[in-house]
């Protein structure tokens, strides 16, 4: 149910009335349906499953999470 990966929007276009975009997944480009994220813009990241962007990635939230982990103590040496 859950294989979804982040991709960066590089182009936006319409195909047969469907909102689409070309997304860059770490060097691999694939066209993805953006019907579920109609407001997404070029340069933003979406989370993509089965050829559909199912959500937008929040960079600030991601950085917050990483900062929280960084603040945790390491294991005793």
């Amino acid at each position, binding site marked *: 149910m859950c294989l979804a990966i982040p991709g960066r929007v590089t182009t936006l276009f319409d195909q*047969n009335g469907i909102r689409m975009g070309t997304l860059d997944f770490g060097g691999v480009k694939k066209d993805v*349906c953006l*019907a579920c994220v109609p407001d997404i813009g070029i340069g933003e990241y979406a989370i993509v499953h089965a050829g559909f962007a*199912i959500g937008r990635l929040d960079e600030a939230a991601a950085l917050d999470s990483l900062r929280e982990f960084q603040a945790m103590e390491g294991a005793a040496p």
Partner: protein
Amino acid sequence: MKYLAEFRDPDLASRLLAAIRRAVTRSWVIMEVCGGQTHSILRHGIDELLPPEVELVHGPGCPVCVTAQETVDRALMIASQPGVIFCSFGDMLRVPGSTTDLLRAKSEGADVRVVYSPLDAVRIAQENPAREVVFFGIGFETTAPANAFAVQAAQRLGVSNFSLLAAQVRVPPAIEALLASPGNRVQAFLAAGHVCTVMGCREYPSIAEGHRVPIVITGFEPLDILEGIRRAVVQLESEEHRVENAFERSATFEGNPAAQAIIEDVFESTDRSWRGIGVIPNSGWKLREEYRSFDAEGRFPCSELPRSATTACRSGEVLQGRLKPPQCPLFGKECTPRTPLGATMVSDEGTCAAYHRAGRFTPDTATHHAAS
């Protein structure tokens, strides 16, 4: 920012593990529902890094594991009709029906095609107007927007030779059913982060309060899973039972309204049979009246499907965490990854497949499965 490598950082992983170790004082049983999370746990070797008090149970979170055998038989029946192009995600090709599977049917001449997206199936239908094209619409809520949209697109574009074999399932009713079953050992859940990206978290507070279990919305990378476990352990240790979102970069409480609208337009609730578990009321989606003409079940009526043989497969108990694979009399003998009898052996993430791969043929209480 790539959003992948950062969430696999080994130093941050070790900090999270240390935090879990500091928090834990007694044994806990935590279930991760999603097959994608199970895959990540196995791939990165997470469960053996956890303190022994934390037992992870791999829940029924993968379409491979839970799609009813009868549905697979129906898919096989449709795929074998002359002229049909049967499209499916790759996951389902090796899942055994009563007598065979889609991959074997393909080798025997059925036109079975693996697609990456349901829209590819609609395109195939457009390119083959004289053939009936059927898409195997499995999946949890994560996949529902894609499957629903494909039907909308087919209707809008007039692709009348396209139909959907709807086999959608939903997570919250499955969690409820698990919690209600006798012998349930699960004390906390890691909810599926991608499902919640679509649906939001609204269905979980009532479950958390009603059954007094912590539910942590969890992502898929190693750091996400460790953080989900950490928060679950912290709650368990302090006897809390709240819904927490540990996947805020992707999931919000409301979820994705555009995706939900697409689902709402096309699907309505229905009972579904889960392989190894049985019928769970309102645990699935079927096509609404307005889209019923795209229903493959209606287009290809089946008078006689092979009756689901009552097999000795006990994957249901495994999925619920009540049975360890070595405790099953068929494990490693009649039932192996090459000759799977049930879903938990077919799927790479399946608990039985994982145990077999690790060579763990004797029953023991630890879930640590890598050779040590």
